[in-house]
C-alpha cells in the first residue's frame, strides 16, 4: 500500500471514530426542555443563567429554557402537546397548572417535594398542592392577592387599616380628593383592574370567598348564583366610583402606575411591585407603604385571597423526566432560590414561602429585603389564608373555576354591572347559567 493511501485510510478511520464517539455522547446526553413563562426580563435572565450553570456542572444534561410571556405559554404548551412533543418542564401560574392537571397532562412531582422536605420546606403544607397523595407542582414563592396602601393617607383621615368592606369604602372615599385645589379630583381611593382580562376575576373571587361565597360547592355544582355573589358585585360597583378615570380598561400595570405616582391611595396587586416601583419613583410613597389582606364583608368572615404563584410542573410524555426532576431539586435549593429572588428586578417582588429560605439570613442580606423585611414577612404569611381557585376542593379537582376566570365569564359579568346596564342579580344569574352550560358539556 502506498504511504499516501495509508494516510487517507487512517484519516477516514479517525473521522469514523470521532463521529461514532459524538453519536454515543449525544445519545447519552439528556435534554431538559423548559417552558418558562416570564413576567420580567430579569426573570428570563435569571433562568437562562441557572440553566447554563446546571448544564455546565452536569455534562450529561443540557437544560434548554424557552422564555415566553405568560399569556402565550398555555397556547404554546397546548400546541406542543397536540403534536406529541411537550417539554419536560414548565414554570406556570397556578391557574394554568390546574388547566393542565384537569386534562391529565401532568406527572406528579411528589418525589421532588419529598426530597425537599415537604411540609418542613414549604410554608403552606404540604407543598401547597396535594391531590390524592400526589404533588402536582413545586411552587416557587408565593403571590397572594392583597392590597397595598398609603399609611400616611389613612392616618391623615384618622382611620385604621380597613378590615371590612365598609371600612375599605370609607378609606377609599377619604383618599379621593382634590389635592391642589383646582376643582378637579386628582387623587383617587383605589385602583384595581377592571379590563377585559382574567385579572378582575381574581379580585372579585377573593372578595367573594371573603364573603363566604363560592363558585362551586364541594360536589362541583355551581353555587355562584347566591346572595353572596350579588352582594360582592354590589360592593364592587360602589368601590369603582373611587377609582381613577379609565377603569374599564385598567389592568395590573395601571394599579402599579397609579399607586407609584400617588394617583391612588390603595392598589390591588398580587406581588409587591407597587412598593418596589414606588421606591424607585417616589421613595416617600414607599416609606409610607403598608399591605393588608383582602377585607371581608363583616368582621365575622375570614379573609381569603386568591393565591397564585409560579410553579414547576412535569409534563406527561416528555422524554427525560428523571433528569427534569433532578433539575427542579437543584433549582429549589435555598441558596439558589435566594439568588433567584434577589435577581427579579432588584428583589422583593415575589415573597418566599420556603421556610429554609425565609430563615436564611442570606435572603435578608439584600438592600430591599432588609429595608422592607416586615412587609415581606407579612406578605409571605398571607399564603396561609390564600385559596388556589383550581384546587380549592382537592377531592373534586375542578379546573372549572380557573376556566371561568380565563374564558372571561366572570370578568364579562363584572364589566356588565360596573360599566354596563345589567343589575347585579341579572348578571350573576347569566354567569351562573353559562357556568352550568359549560359544566354540562365538559367533563371535569
Amino acid at each position: 500500500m502506498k504511504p499516501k493511501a495509508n494516510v487517507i485510510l487512517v484519516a477516514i478511520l479517525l473521522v469514523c471514530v470521532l463521529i461514532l464517539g459524538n453519536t454515543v455522547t449525544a445519545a447519552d446526553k439528556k435534554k431538559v426542555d423548559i417552558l418558562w413563562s416570564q413576567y420580567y426580563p430579569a426573570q428570563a435572565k435569571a433562568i437562562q443563567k441557572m440553566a447554563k450553570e446546571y448544564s455546565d456542572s452536569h455534562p450529561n444534561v443540557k437544560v434548554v429554557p424557552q422564555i415566553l410571556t405568560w399569556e402565550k405559554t398555555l397556547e404554546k404548551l397546548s400546541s406542543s402537546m397536540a403534536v406529541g412533543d411537550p417539554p419536560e418542564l414548565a414554570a406556570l401560574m397556578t391557574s394554568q397548572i390546574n388547566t393542565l392537571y384537569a386534562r391529565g397532562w401532568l406527572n406528579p412531582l411528589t418525589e421532588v417535594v419529598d426530597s425537599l422536605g415537604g411540609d418542613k420546606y414549604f410554608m403552606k403544607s404540604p407543598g401547597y398542592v396535594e391531590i390524592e397523595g400526589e404533588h402536582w407542582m413545586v411552587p416557587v414563592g408565593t403571590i397572594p392577592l392583597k392590597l397595598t396602601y398609603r399609611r400616611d393617607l389613612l392616618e391623615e383621615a384618622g382611620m385604621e387599616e380597613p378590615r371590612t368592606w365598609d371600612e375599605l369604602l370609607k378609606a377609599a372615599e377619604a383618599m379621593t380628593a382634590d389635592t391642589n385645589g383646582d376643582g378637579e379630583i386628582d387623587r383617587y381611593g383605589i385602583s384595581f383592574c377592571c379590563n377585559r382580562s382574567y385579572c378582575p376575576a381574581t379580585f372579585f373571587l377573593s372578595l367573594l370567598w371573603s364573603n363566604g361565597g363560592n363558585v362551586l360547592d364541594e360536589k362541583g355544582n355551581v353555587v355562584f348564583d347566591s346572595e353572596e355573589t350579588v352582594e360582592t358585585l354590589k360592593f364592587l360597583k360602589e368601590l369603582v366610583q373611587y377609582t381613577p378615570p379609565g377603569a374599564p380598561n385598567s389592568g395590573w400595570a395601571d394599579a402599579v402606575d397609579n399607586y407609584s405616582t400617588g394617583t391612588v391611595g390603595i392598589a390591588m396587586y398580587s406581588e409587591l411591585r407597587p412598593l418596589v416601583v414606588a421606591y424607585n419613583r417616589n421613595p416617600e410613597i414607599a416609606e409610607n407603604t403598608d399591605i393588608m389582606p383582602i377585607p371581608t364583608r363583616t368582621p365575622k368572615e375570614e379573609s381569603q385571597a386568591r393565591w397564585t404563584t409560579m410553579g414547576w410542573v412535569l409534563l406527561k410524555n416528555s422524554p427525560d423526566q428523571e433528569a427534569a426532576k433532578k433539575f427542579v431539586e437543584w433549582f429549589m435549593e435555598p441558596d439558589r432560590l435566594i439568588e433567584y429572588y434577589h435577581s427579579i428586578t432588584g428583589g422583593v417582588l415575589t415573597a418566599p414561602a420556603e421556610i429554609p429560605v425565609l430563615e436564611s439570613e442570606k435572603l435578608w442580606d439584600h438592600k430591599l429585603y432588609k429595608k422592607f423585611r416586615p412587609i415581606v414577612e407579612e406578605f409571605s404569611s398571607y399564603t396561609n389564608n390564600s385559596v388556589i381557585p383550581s384546587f380549592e376542593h382537592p377531592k373534586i379537582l375542578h379546573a372549572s373555576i380557573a376556566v371561568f376566570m380565563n374564558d372571561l365569564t366572570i370578568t364579562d359579568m363584572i364589566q356588565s354591572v360596573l360599566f354596563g346596564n345589567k343589575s347585579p342579580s341579572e348578571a350573576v344569574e347569566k354567569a351562573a347559567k353559562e357556568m352550568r352550560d359549560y359544566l354540562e358539556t365538559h367533563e371535569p
Partner: protein
Amino acid sequence: MRDKIFKYVTISPLYLLVAFIGLVPSVYALLLSFTNRDLFSKAWQFIGVQNYVSVLGDPEFWFALKNNIVYGGTTTLLQVGLGLIISLLLIRPFKGSYVARGLIVFPYLVPTVVAVLTFKWIFDDVYGLANNLLVTLGFGKIAWLGPSLAMFTVVLVSVWRFLPFTVLLIMPGLQAIPNSHYEAARLDGASPFQQFWYITLPQLRGVLYIVALLRGIWMFNNFNVIWLMTQGGPVKKTMHVPILSYTKAFRQFEIGRGSAIAVAGFSFLLVFILLYFRSTAE
C-alpha cells in the same frame, strides 16, 4: 407537447406552494369546525354541524358580527374617503410635496404593536396626551376607551394605521388620468367640483372599487388593533368575530368551536371576496 409538459412541471412548484400556504390551513380550519377538537387533546370526534348550530344560535356571535360590520364598514369607508381626499391634495405639485408624500406612508411603516400601544397611552384616561390636551384647552376629560367611545377610538386608530395603503393605491390611479381631460374640461368652463365629479371619480371608479374591497376584507379580519387596545372590551363593546373566535379557541381551548365561529364569519366575508374576484376578472 414536450414544451407543454415542461411548462406545467416548472409552474407546478408555485401551485403547490400556493396550495400549501393558502389552502391547507383553510381546509384544516374547515375540517376542525366539524369536530369537537380540544387544543390539549389528540382525541376528537366528527360532530357534524353541531358547532354551527350552536354558534348560529348564540346571540354573542350575532353581536360580534354586528360589531364586525360596524368596525369593518366604518374603517373601510373612512380609509377610502380620506385616502381619496389626501391623494387629491398630494397629487398637485407644491413645495415639499415629495416630503409630504413620503410622510404619509409613515403610519404604515410603524409596527402595529408599537403604533397601537402608543395610541393606548395617548388615549389613556389619566395620563394620556389627548385628555391632557383637552384639559389644557379648557375642556373636560373624555373616557376614550370607555364603553361609549371604545369602538370610535379603535376605528380612529385603525384608520390612522391603514390609511397610507389607500393613498398608495389611489395616487397612481389619479396620476394615470390624462391631463388633457382636465384641460378640455377647463376650456369648457367646468368648475373644480365638476372636474372631480365628471372626470376624476368615473376614471377612479375601478381603483376605488378594488381598494374598498381589499380594505373591507382586511378590516373585517383585523384582529391585532382591537386586541391590543381593548381585548374586545369594555362590556364586549369592541368584541368582533375574530376576537370571539380567538377566545373560544385559545382561552377555552375549544378549537373546533373557535374554527366554526371563524368559518361562519368567513362565509359573510365570502360575498366580498366573490365580488373582488368578479371585478378582477372583469
